[in-house]
């Protein structure tokens, strides 16, 4: 029987291939630019189904794979998935599931399994680094069809609970102003006792993913280490010299990026530094690992606009930076 099917085997395989392609779609990332990123996913993703999300990064001008992607914080491509009502969040990578192979690297094609928990509109932001410059791309993924888009404002929240853990986010100046440096302090407790056993997770004590409520203005930052403070200070002390040139800065950054990760903040507090680009409501997910087990806190923050008073001089750049030093 099998023997009689043998001549038809190539045709059967071809048909199977066509069927499998039929159920996949390719979504091109926004924004465009010198790198093109494509996501292959089921053409009708269904909540609860385990799917494979595959990304491929190519040079826009000739479609060749970007073979020189750099590893940053232990991963080649960092993917942040959120449901756009901000009820769900994931920070996920290819290497969480399998080691990178030469083929993966040469084809710049990475994948990971993922299960969207509920129907809705999702956004995946993918971050990668090439030639020491990091690029951010995003994909919009619709899961199911029976859902309503939710854009209502969320209640502001500067505390967050995950099991026995609680996170408290303190804004150093009380108010976050768009375009101004903001220092925040995350305090973590477990059953009301300060957590003192934080571990590094993907090379940092904290991974912070930030979106504005409308899904725009994604940001990704980490704990604000003394090394960063010192570097800023030493830069400030050098009125003259190479460090102000792009090459000098690039070299300094490369040096800093190449340094081994070091646990600085064991708890209960982690300082975080960020500049929110626009006013509005923002959602900040902060991932940290007490005892090495990652948990994610969610905060909803208010960012106000710089004053519209045309004669206002309250918040000059000098004073803003003065606040941070």
């Amino acid at each position, binding site marked *: 029987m099998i023997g009689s099917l043998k001549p038809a085997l190539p045709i059967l395989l071809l048909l199977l291939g066509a069927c499998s392609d039929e159920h996949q779609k390719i979504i091109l990332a926004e924004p465009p*630019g010198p790198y093109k990123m494509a996501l292959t996913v089921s053409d009708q993703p269904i909540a609860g189904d385990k799917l494979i999300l595959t990304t491929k990064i190519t040079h826009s001008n000739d479609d060749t794979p970007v073979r020189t992607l750099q590893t940053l914080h232990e991963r080649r491509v960092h993917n942040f998935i959120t449901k756009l009502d901000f009820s769900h969040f994931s920070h996920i990578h290819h290497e969480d599931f399998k080691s990178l192979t030469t083929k993966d690297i040469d084809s710049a094609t990475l994948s990971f399994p993922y299960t969207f928990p509920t129907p809705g509109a999702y956004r995946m932001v993918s971050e990668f680094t090439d030639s020491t*410059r*990091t690029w951010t791309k995003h994909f919009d993924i619709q899961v199911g069809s029976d859902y309503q888009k939710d854009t209502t404002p969320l209640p502001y929240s500067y505390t967050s609970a995950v099991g026995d853990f609680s996170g408290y986010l303190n804004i150093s100046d009380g108010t976050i102003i768009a*375009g101004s*440096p903001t220092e925040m302090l995350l305090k973590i407790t477990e059953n009301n006792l300060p957590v003192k056993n934080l571990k590094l997770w993907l090379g940092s004590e904290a991974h912070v993913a930030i979106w504005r409520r409308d899904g725009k203005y*994604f940001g990704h930052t980490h704990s604000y280490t003394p090394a960063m403070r010192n570097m800023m200070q030493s830069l*400030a002390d*050098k009125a003259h010299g190479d460090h102000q040139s792009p090459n000098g800065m690039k070299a300094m950054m490369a040096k800093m990026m190449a340094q081994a990760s070091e646990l600085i903040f064991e708890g209960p507090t982690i300082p975080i530094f960020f500049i929110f680009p626009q006013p509005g409501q923002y959602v900040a997910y902060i991932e940290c690992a007490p005892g090495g087990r990652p948990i994610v806190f969610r905060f909803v923050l208010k960012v106000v606009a710089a004053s519209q008073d*045309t004669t206002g001089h309250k918040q000059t750049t000098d004073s803003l*930076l003065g606040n941070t030093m």
Partner: protein
Amino acid sequence: MKLKVIVITTSIFFCNYSLAGHGFFNSFEGINWLPESGLTPGDFFYAVDAASEKITLHLTKDSYTKKKKYLDLAEERLAEGISLLKQGNIAYSTKIENEYDEYLKKLRLPPYINEDIREVESQQKYAERLLQHMYILSVEVLGTPRSMHKYFLNLNEMVTKHYEHITESLSRDFVDSHFFKKEEVKWSWEIAFESN
């Protein structure tokens, strides 16, 4: 003096750090890119397209809507210009630069402090968008032949000039809130030329 140094050095640091990954700051994530360039000068139906733009503008009476259209048209010109430069085509660069310049000129307020809050808000939006144009140009220039760079720089110079004119009449606080964004744009240009 020391504060000034801090301003300069920390801003460069922020931008490098953010763009080198895992940053304190990422002002341009998720911004709307330019529209598809569609027809470009030299295409057979381009003249028809241009005529229909003029008719639409003529029929728009409300000044706010009209300014919005000017911005849309400026963006179309910019998209066309970038598309041609990427192909190494400079035959229409002067025409495109002039039209881009003209449309951006129409966005500007007279040089007095306007009390109309709606106008102030639109001017802030235009300033924001023009800054995004500068960033987009700094990204699109990547990978283009060296001979095309001066045309990208011409466009950047033009949009910078209009941005500065617009921000002259806006509040100091608003202008200050753009400080890091401008540094990020500047760095993006520097690193683009270094990469190229």
